[in-house]
């Protein structure tokens, strides 16, 4: 490995730290996306049997959707209000 000053090392480590932090933040934030809702709906639908013990509703606004053109990749929490009733 080529000799590097401690200042150069520090610069690289700080930059990589910022990059990884950004990766983690963005991936954690989108860990549950709208596309993931379907299996959860199916699972909730099983609770309580065929009579359907749960009522699940989703709420958003056209303005909220319009503001997120890449909606499928947006965290559901950012776009939708999801509520459950039983």
């Amino acid at each position: 490995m080529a000799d590097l000053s401690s200042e150069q090392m520090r610069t690289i480590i700080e930059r990589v730290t910022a990059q990884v932090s950004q990766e983690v933040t963005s991936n954690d934030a989108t860990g549950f996306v709208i596309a993931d809702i379907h299996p959860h709906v199916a699972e909730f639908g099983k609770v309580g049997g065929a009579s359907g013990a749960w009522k699940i509703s989703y709420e958003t606004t056209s303005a909220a959707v319009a503001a997120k053109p890449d909606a499928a990749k947006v965290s559901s929490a950012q776009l939708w209000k999801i509520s459950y009733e039983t």
Partner: protein
Amino acid sequence: MIDSRVWQGVESLLDHYVDVRTEDVVILLYSSDSSESAIWVSAALELRHVPVRRVWMAPLHDDGFRERLTLALPPPAELTGRLVVLTFERDTMSHTRTLATALAKYDSHRYTVFRAISASASLFSDALRVSPEELSARNTALLERCMVAEHLRITTEGGTDLNVTIDTERFHWISNRGTARPGGVVVLPAGEVATFPAFICGVFVADFAFNVNALTERDARLQDHPVTVWIEAGRAVKYQCDDLATSQFLEECLQTHCAYNVGELGFGTNIGIRNAIPMNSHINERRPGVHLGFGQHNQDPGIVGYQCAIHLDLIARGGTIWVDSDLVPLDLENVAPSSQRHPTDPRDEDVFSPESFEANDCCGILTGDGLQPLPRSDLRCS
């Protein structure tokens, strides 16, 4: 900021384990709980001018991982050096099949895979500072004595006194030493030999730590409240611990179906690990000493006759092994490294066969199929 011991471990990983070269392409997979490890290794690679592509992954279940991995992998024809895959996770070993499928298009001699669990500062500052050559020489020394043995008597300063029958023809030995055959996978941290005891009885005192294949935030150290287990005919018949919480934890573990069976007799060989760390981890069980794995065994399916959802390692500090009638025992804390070649009979452990690519660690690893709800109060996720 990274300290010098951690940095030495990072350098040791790249120099002694991976033998990384500038023409290699490194794919670094990491979960959020291991982002520090990803930072340290990425920075070290960058300082060496080795290209690295990071891929974040959610542990165990991640629908988008396949796509992200595929995008990061270079076409085989573009490789001038090796493809080096490094993965870092804390509690889990995830996406094994996805990774195997993705690597199938590469010549097995052109890629190498290292999968680190228990990712933490201690992984680097303690476990990875010891080279595979050193571990291999120590594993060889133990295997030379134990593989030909029929009977072992194992004692520890903490009060362990075990009688063990060894049957190397029926039950293979596993040697984890930080190396793998082409197409294999190295599981880190390394430093252990293990087998299934054909017969075991006596008293075992775990005064170092535990390691369980479940998600737990419980302090794994046992030095202040050792666990004593009485064993008859390969089964735990009684256990005792002065700490109530640990005692309850043990009860939850050992009540799992078949978990009272001794499924593993293991000897740690990593001399870089001296003191137990609080984290539930493989680092603790690599420490020189004897440990018993209760529950799932380390043999092929059908060989032992049961399967168990849990693998609980109870680990003692140090240990002395009296081999058959030999008057000179093995002191696990002072093993003289062997200059002989490592035996070829033991499974080159931690190897995932290219066909099945299944995790085959001797000590139980939390994979996507192995998430255990145990104990419920300790779960961080499910």
